[in-house]
């Protein structure tokens, strides 16, 4: 297929269709509104269903219903809207429903602003909602990767019957880049699975629920979810190393679009003969701790760069087990650190190594 020019938000919508998802429930919010806008036009063309819910709370429960009857389903929102969905996400995880949720993050807290941010890292990876559960969380750094990871999100959700979240900042949602849509082999409808609610004529009834009144049953359900995520952690970590061959004194850790700015900074520094490595987690949950530790080994000091106030630092600390000093540089609220900003902070970190 010929390349097309798409906004990240549109590309995410189209990628969902290519992955076999033709059901969308959601509510508009800047800067992700082009996803519902795009799908409102496209889904009728492919025989799908688009519903603008009355709120994000409703949308998160609508995807529960759609997934429960075996439909591939997507919802998307931006930070405040995702917070509203939190209760529903816990229910989805508890009921082991294979849904995909996209968060095109804007500056917070509260109503915050409408410009790009990575301020929901901890929410997505650590504390989305009540109870013991884990989301798989993917962080693209380009429009093409947003396409690829949205498709991957559906595959992972179905493989593990676990909700998957794709997080991008407002820039990923809004910027336009040429993209290719890969040929996707769409699996059989989920309704064919042995858990989907498809009408029990001729078979025993099924139940899709997160309610376990018996304490032992609920304990066992929690253990099952924990064991499932251990398998996911074992199998599904993805990351990128950039400029990590050879020697370097400083390793930059960064995710999403911020990592792309860091790459340019690293290229500029390389022209000056200063070698800097970059570790970019693609699955920010499960976090590739071992890969991060390995990349950090060669470095004297680490620099974590984010569009927030330092939410990923604790994962880098866990990865390095406190063996390395970690500096932080970040901006929040919609201010995007420039290439020069990153170069300057790398120089400062470098100076602390005695170089």
């Amino acid at each position, binding site marked *: 297929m*010929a*390349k*097309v*020019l*798409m*906004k990240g938000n*549109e590309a995410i919508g*189209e990628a969902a269709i290519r992955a076999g998802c033709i059901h969308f429930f959601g509510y508009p919010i*800047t*800067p992700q509104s*082009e996803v519902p806008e*795009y799908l409102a*036009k*496209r889904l009728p063309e492919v025989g799908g269903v688009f519903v603008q819910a009355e709120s994000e709370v409703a949308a998160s429960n609508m995807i529960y219903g759609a997934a429960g009857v075996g439909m591939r389903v997507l919802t998307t929102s931006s930070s405040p809207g995702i917070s509203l969905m939190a209760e529903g996400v816990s229910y989805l995880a508890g009921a082991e429903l294979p849904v995909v949720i996209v968060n095109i993050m804007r500056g917070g807290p509260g109503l915050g*602003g*409408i*410009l*790009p941010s990575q301020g929901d890292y901890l929410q997505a990876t650590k504390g989305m909602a009540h109870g013991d559960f884990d989301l798989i969380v993917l962080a693209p750094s380009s429009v093409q990767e947003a396409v690829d990871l949205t498709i991957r999100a559906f595959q992972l959700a179905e493989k593990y019957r676990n909700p998957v979240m794709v997080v991008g900042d*407002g*820039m990923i949602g*809004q*910027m*336009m*880049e*040429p993209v290719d849509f890969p040929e996707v082999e769409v699996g059989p409808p989920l309704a064919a699975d042995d858990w989907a609610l498809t009408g029990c004529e001729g078979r025993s009834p099924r139940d899709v629920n997160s309610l376990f009144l018996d304490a032992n049953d609920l304990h066992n359900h929690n253990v099952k979810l924990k064991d499932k995520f251990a398998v996911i952690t074992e199998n599904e970590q993805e990351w990128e190393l950039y400029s990590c061959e050879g020697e370097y004194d400083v390793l930059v850790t960064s995710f999403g*679009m911020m990592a*792309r*700015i860091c*790459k*340019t900074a690293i290229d*500029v520094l390389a022209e000056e003969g200063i070698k800097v490595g970059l570790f970019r987690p693609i699955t920010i949950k499960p976090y590739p701790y071992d890969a991060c530790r390995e990349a950090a080994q060669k470095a004297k000091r680490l620099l974590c760069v984010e569009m927030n106030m330092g939410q990923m630092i604790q994962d880098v600390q866990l990865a390095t087990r406190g063996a390395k000093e970690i500096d932080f540089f970040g901006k929040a609220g*919609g*201010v*995007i*650190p*420039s*290439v*020069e900003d990153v170069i300057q902070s790398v120089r400062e970190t470098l100076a602390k190594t005695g170089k």
Partner: protein
Amino acid sequence: MTQSNAAIYELSTPLTMVVGSYGSGKTEISVNLAVATRMRGCRVSVADLDIVNPYFRCREAQVLMREHGVRVVIPPGAQQFADLPIVVPEIKGMLEPQEGVFSIFDVGGDEVGARLLSSFSEPLKGRPYRLLQVINSRRPFTSTLEGCIRMKEGLEESSRLKVGGFIVNSHLITDTTIEVVLEGFELAQKLSEETGVPIEFVTAMGELAQAPELAALPAPILPLRRVMLPPWLKDEPKDDSSDEKSNRMPAGRVKPLFVP
């Protein structure tokens, strides 16, 4: 750089309104057209009328345009960063033709963005204006003749104005080839035959503007320099503007244009 023989497009109508689908390139065209017109010594005002999308709007290029002597009409202060449908009163004044002044409206995307123009359809009656629809054959929904016609009808219905010309802006940003531009021109030609609306001009980014294939086209060219840069591209030397707030680029940065 060698000069091709292509005719360069020049504004001739007092008011030009640029409409089209989301991401079709309205802002890049508006900014480039404004600066090019100013460089020929004309007075130019640009109004950012994008009230539907808060990213990549021409207000982000306001410092650049002002440096070139273009008047930029946008909501005041922090309101310019909001996703609110703010229309400043100066806009009404721009509907009135003035001797030697060109006005450009950079309108929001799709029929939703063009709806704002419907409030001008009465005052514009009998006044000279051009409503120009941008076509990029590599964008979803406008890659086919049917899609472009549907878009045109939607734009006209919501703006209560008539499209008076097509701007061929087929591109893939960094991956644009001359084939992509020519493919867009071919689509626009069919569109023109079908609707009776002429092709106003063809855009070409950077070096592509020099391509001999363009000189052969029966339409003038607007050479473009990319204005809205993503934040991972290396910074150009900073300008001296001390007004940091208004120079802030929320969704990307702005590259110096037509460096003397």
